[in-house]
């Protein structure tokens, strides 16, 4: 690629550079002469965090319009900005390197770019740092690749590529039971995505030939062309079948009940940075894929299966919230709250209202800031108190005021306190749900009270309640040592996340406008027609 094209094509750069740097950082120490382990880790960490920060800066500049001067609020649904000229990858079967962003993917791209340096900050002194930081860079590449790819083959490759760094993160830096969790995580999500692959292949061979592509097969993987092709799959039954195959892949990733069981195990065992990325970005891949492929390409099937979406959403929401109540493990509780929040995304989509879909989009983004904060807090709790049991200690506020403050803010944001990011999404979804389904809204609304109950309960038990005002109760795992507060790097990472939570709670319009545009677009362009053909009314 020439120099000029690189500047024209920032999405390819931010996707591929971390992968290249990450692999180099892993290989180079084996080739170069021996240096001290300490120095190696420091170099590796500095380069990794430098690259990650540079990418965060690039995406921020892109968003602010400083680079490429893009008007983000004016992208029509179905159109993409920052598209590159397609580069042939495997032209014989119609695979090209084609990237682009729109209001659906860009908030996710920005979120990924911001979360990676933050998670590096939080795990500043990870063991075996010479592997840890490059692995996070590779993870960044894989995640960005999922969101920028406009070719389903490349999309699937990145989708699966996210598994490998996460698998290694859990295995190499995980907790006691990491092998079980890593295996379960890999096999569960891999199997589900292979079903999705069959769905993609059925779509693939229904595509019309594009000249110069697919010399061997006569088909192509280009998502934009697939979306544009009228009536991609003529048989209605097959269309529904493909939709279900895709849903298996997406719902497992989200995850939705009943295929959520890998999540709590993976979260509890994963290292802090791993949990942060898992909850912050990887779960959103499911919702992203659903909106990008299932909903856009198969609007009729989506309408047909709205009752299924409501059912899955409701069950995830209610079940997740109730199970949360019974958890004593901090990470497990946050994991189940994620399941519950992901249920809200399905409900938002099922409203078939611009407001509801925009709410779902904003929920993806807001949960992407809040849950990493919660996991960072949980990780720090484990780091400083050597336990994750909620009841094992009282009065964190006394010993570790910073930790307590972040914990408090994170939980408040997660239960939907106004002026914090989560509130905007929840309110939007609930209003849209009421507009479409009327009093059925009581079920999700009441569940939010359950959410508030379990957070307030844990808050009271861990942060405040103390039998002895001078001491609190310290967990046995501390073995009588004095507890410490957050280190500077943990605090820096969490402060950034906390600031973002507040920023997007007070000024949601930063992203809300473009999301709401996109949502109106998809309803007007594709869903209304589908509603008419399916004779659907709520």
């Amino acid at each position, binding site marked *: 690629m020439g120099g000029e094209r690189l500047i024209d094509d920032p999405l390819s750069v931010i996707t591929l550079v971390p992968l290249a740097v990450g692999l180099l950082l892993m290989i180079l120490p*084996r080739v170069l002469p021996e240096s001290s382990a300490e120095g190696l880790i420091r170099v590796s960490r500095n380069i990794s965090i430098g690259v990650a920060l540079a990418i965060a800066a690039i995406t921020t500049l892109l968003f602010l319009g400083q680079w490429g001067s893009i008007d983000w609020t004016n992208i029509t649904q179905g159109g993409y900005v920052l598209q590159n000229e397609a580069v*042939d*990858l*495997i*032209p*014989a*079967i119609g*695979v090209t390197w084609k990237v682009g962003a729109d209001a659906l993917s860009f908030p996710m791209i920005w979120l990924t770019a911001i979360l990676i340096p933050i998670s590096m900050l939080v795990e500043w002194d990870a063991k075996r740092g010479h592997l840890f930081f490059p692995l996070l860079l590779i993870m960044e590449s894989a995640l960005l690749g999922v969101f920028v790819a406009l070719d389903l083959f490349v999309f*699937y*490759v990145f989708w*699966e*590529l996210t*598994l*490998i760094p996460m698998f290694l993160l859990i*295995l*190499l830096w995980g907790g006691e039971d990491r*092998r079980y969790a890593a*295996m379960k995580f*890999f*096999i569960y999500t*891999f*199997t589900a995505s*292979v*079903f999705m*692959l*069959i769905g993609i*292949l*059925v779509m*693939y*061979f229904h595509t019309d030939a594009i000249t110069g592509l697919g*010399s*061997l*097969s*006569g088909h192509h993987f280009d998502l934009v062309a697939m979306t544009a092709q009228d009536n991609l799959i*003529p*048989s*209605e*039954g*097959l269309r*529904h*079948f493909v*939709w*279900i195959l895709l849903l298996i892949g997406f719902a497992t990733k989200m995850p939705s009940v009943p295929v959520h069981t890998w999540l709590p195990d993976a979260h509890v065992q994963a290292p802090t940075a791993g949990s942060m990325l898992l909850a912050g970005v990887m779960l959103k891949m499911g919702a992203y894929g659903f909106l990008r492929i299932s909903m856009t390409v198969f609007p009729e099937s989506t309408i047909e299966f709205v009752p299924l979406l409501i059912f899955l959403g409701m069950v995830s929401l209610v079940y997740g919230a109730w199970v949360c109540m019974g958890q004593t493990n901090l990470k497990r509780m946050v994991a189940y709250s994620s399941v519950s929040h992901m249920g809200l995304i399905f409900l938002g989509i099922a409203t078939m209202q611009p407001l509801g879909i925009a709410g779902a989009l904003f929920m993806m983004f807001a949960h992407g800031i809040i849950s990493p904060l919660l996991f960072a807090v949980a990780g720090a709790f484990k780091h400083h108190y050597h336990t994750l049991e909620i009841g094992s200690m009282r009065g964190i506020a006394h010993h570790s005021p910073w930790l307590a403050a972040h914990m408090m803010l994170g939980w408040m944001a997660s239960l939907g306190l106004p002026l914090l990011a989560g509130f905007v999404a929840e309110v939007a979804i609930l209003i849209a749900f009421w507009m479409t389904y009327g009093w059925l809204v009581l079920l999700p609304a009441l569940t939010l009270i359950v959410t508030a109950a379990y957070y307030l309960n844990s808050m009271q038990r861990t942060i405040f309640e103390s039998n002895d005002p001078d001491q609190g109760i310290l967990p046995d795992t501390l073995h009588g040592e004095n507890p410490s507060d957050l280190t500077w790097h943990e605090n820096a990472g969490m402060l950034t996340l906390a600031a973002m939570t507040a920023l997007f709670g007070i000024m949601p319009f930063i992203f809300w406008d473009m999301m709401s545009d996109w949502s109106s677009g998809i309803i007007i362009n594709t869903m209304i027609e589908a509603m008419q053909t399916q004779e659907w009314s709520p």
Partner: protein
Amino acid sequence: MSSIITDMDLATTQLILPELLLLGGIIAMILVPNLGDATMRIPLTRVRIPILIGGTRFASINNPKLPNQIATTVLALAFLTSFLFLGEHGEVGNSLQVDEFSRLFTLLFTAALFLASVATTARLPARPRASVPLDTDSTTHSDAKVNALIDNRRQVDFHILLLTTGLGMSLMAMATNLFMLFVCLELASLSSYILVAFHKETDVGGEAGMKYFIVGSVVSAVGIYGMSLLYLWNGSLDMANLAASWKGMEVIDPFAAIGVGLMLVAFGFKVGAAPFHLAVPDAYAGASSPIAGVLATASKAMGFVALMRLLLVVTMPSAGQASWLLVLALVAVVTMTWGNLAALTSDNPKRVLAYSSVAHAGYMLAALAAIGSGLADSDTSALIATAVVFHLCVLVLFKMGAFLVLSMLEAEGRGHRMEDLHGLARRDPVIATSMFVFMLSLAGVPPLSGFLSKLLMINGIVNVSAGTGSASAATALSWAQGVDPVFWLAIAIVLNSALSLFYYLRIGLVMFFESPDTENPLVHSPSLKMAIIACAVLTLLFGIGPLSDSLLDMVGSAVDSFMRS
């Protein structure tokens, strides 16, 4: 035969240059180690002329490494020449057809054998400085010396067999006559039986070779019986002739049907299809790892060439369902499921790889079954055949690569228990990473080449079948009821891939997360290590990007020439 010899002009020589090179290698292997300074006196004179054979060997060739060097060079040359003359095609004699298809398989066979030959430097090492044990040596010391001497002595045997295997396989890919095909197949098979039993001093080696030989020869006999029935029916074993007669049949002739069925048994054994696969894991476990790798890649590819000739050339009807569809589809599902279930319960890495090889045979049979469904137009059939051949090609990289890693362990007398893989990452991180890449590729994880080939096979199956569901079906369920059963083969592959993840990941896990019995670095063998790294890198490069595209193109045009024949 006379025609071949008299017509041996330059063009023909060029056509079969790789085979001639292999033949030359075999002759050289016999002659070169025997070159010496022997002379012969011309009778009645005092003039002595050197005759070179016999006498005291020349110092320069008195090197036990020589056979390995000859074999490696010859295989590399054969690979290069078949690559250079890939586009050449023509007929040799009346029963050999050189085209891109056969050339591609020559490439595949020589590549696999080349890797095996490289691995042999560590697995069956020749030691130029081996000495005769002294009386003062301890028992173990003298045993080691004796073993080294034995290893030196059997270098020639091993490498000759390696080359004859290559010759047989390569000729087999060209055969257009069933009889020729079978003779070449047997040349390769008989050599491989001996190679499996080569380490006869070990407990398992002899048993494995014996088992493989007995089952193999019984199955060959069955195949030859089937062939004789076909001959009775048709009067000729030329495949084009057979195909014409098959297509001309109004009702299926029992002679022909039984003949083809019995031949399927023979070829099914070669590819390791259930229920004829039972000797496979024993053979792999008993053979040395490089040879097991050859069995899993080259020998399997040979079986698939024979199957494709029989199924797609001879007995494929011009329209409609092939008569063998149901049998093949059932065999495919049973093979993949049986292979994966057995691999799950196995504790010997070589057996795991053997059963995984059985499972892979099942995937490829399922793809062939999709061609037989008669739903595919010629383009789609070609695409599916391309997928199968592509899979066979890239298997050489990651299946062979995995066996090469095991052969490194075997060189130190390990590699038969899962525990031997424990902590490999600590002993040699590069090798362990490569092994992890091979496992992921076998499991079909993108962007590795194993994913691309599996995707192409599933795509082929979905492609021919998913359009068959009733177009008017309004619900997913009614569509699923109406779809051609071939579609469920794709689902079977997917479920089996999920099952296989357990054992592939397990190998990855134990390498990285268990502590090894010993911290010693692996046996030092730079060439083998280079070969393993090259395999791992190519596994990635053939999965995505320009290299995979050119290989796909190559395979695509090879399959075109096969379909035209």
